[in-house]
């Protein structure tokens, strides 16, 4: 039987932007979560990190990544206070272009530590666009009930869209 995706919730940032986008009271009735992101941040740079936390928690995260930006490839370990899911477009990248990300969160209600993966790209009609593969671990056994995307004190720009899906294995 094909895996069914159910759109749980979606939101698009309005004029003026928003510093945080939160999915709360996530139903505990699915097996996995998938988040589709199309976003642009107000940071004064070509790209900004796609950062997020779960359950309002800022501890016990670890992240590994491999990343290319058109000229160099790098990898490594980063961030302990949040999930890092690559680089999306920021304010000095080509206007009206948004970065995109696919985030996968398997077994989000289970009693094990929570691992996630993401593939993320920044689109840019110029040099210096990023492609990043990340995996992250939240060393906590709690079920995931909320997810918040934020970049410090800077806004997600208007038309940034975050959509949460639930899937089951059968």
């Amino acid at each position: 039987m094909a895996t069914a995706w159910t759109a749980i919730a979606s939101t698009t940032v309005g004029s003026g932007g928003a510093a945080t986008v939160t999915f709360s009271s996530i139903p505990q009735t699915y097996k996995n979560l998938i988040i589709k992101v199309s976003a642009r941040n107000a940071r004064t740079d070509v790209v900004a990190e796609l950062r997020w936390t779960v359950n309002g928690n800022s501890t016990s995260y670890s992240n590994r990544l491999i990343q290319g930006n058109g000229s160099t490839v790098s990898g490594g370990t980063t961030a302990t206070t949040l999930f890092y899911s690559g680089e999306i477009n920021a304010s000095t990248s080509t206007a009206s272009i948004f970065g995109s990300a696919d985030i996968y969160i398997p077994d989000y209600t289970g009693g094990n530590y929570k691992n996630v993966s993401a593939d993320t790209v920044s689109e840019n009609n110029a040099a210096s666009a990023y492609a990043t593969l990340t995996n992250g671990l939240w060393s906590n056994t709690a079920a995931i009930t909320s997810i918040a995307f934020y970049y410090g004190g800077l806004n997600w720009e208007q038309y940034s869209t975050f959509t949460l899906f639930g899937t089951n294995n059968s």
Partner: protein
Amino acid sequence: MSEMLTNIEVNCTTGEVTERPLTAEEIAQREADAAAFATAEAERVATAEALAALKASARAKLVAGTPLTEAEAATLVI
């Protein structure tokens, strides 16, 4: 006047969408998270750049026929 930072919250059970200003505590937490991330990321980038420099030096020495350091050789031979 500083820009007001807001939180768009989607209640996935009820479908209700609310937008409210971030509290001072939330702003402080986000700034602390961002600072911690910046520190970790700076370390990662520095490590990656040092490795790239080591590889470049190793290549240059190979081409020139000069001896490599142990660290340079380690970037070429697994």
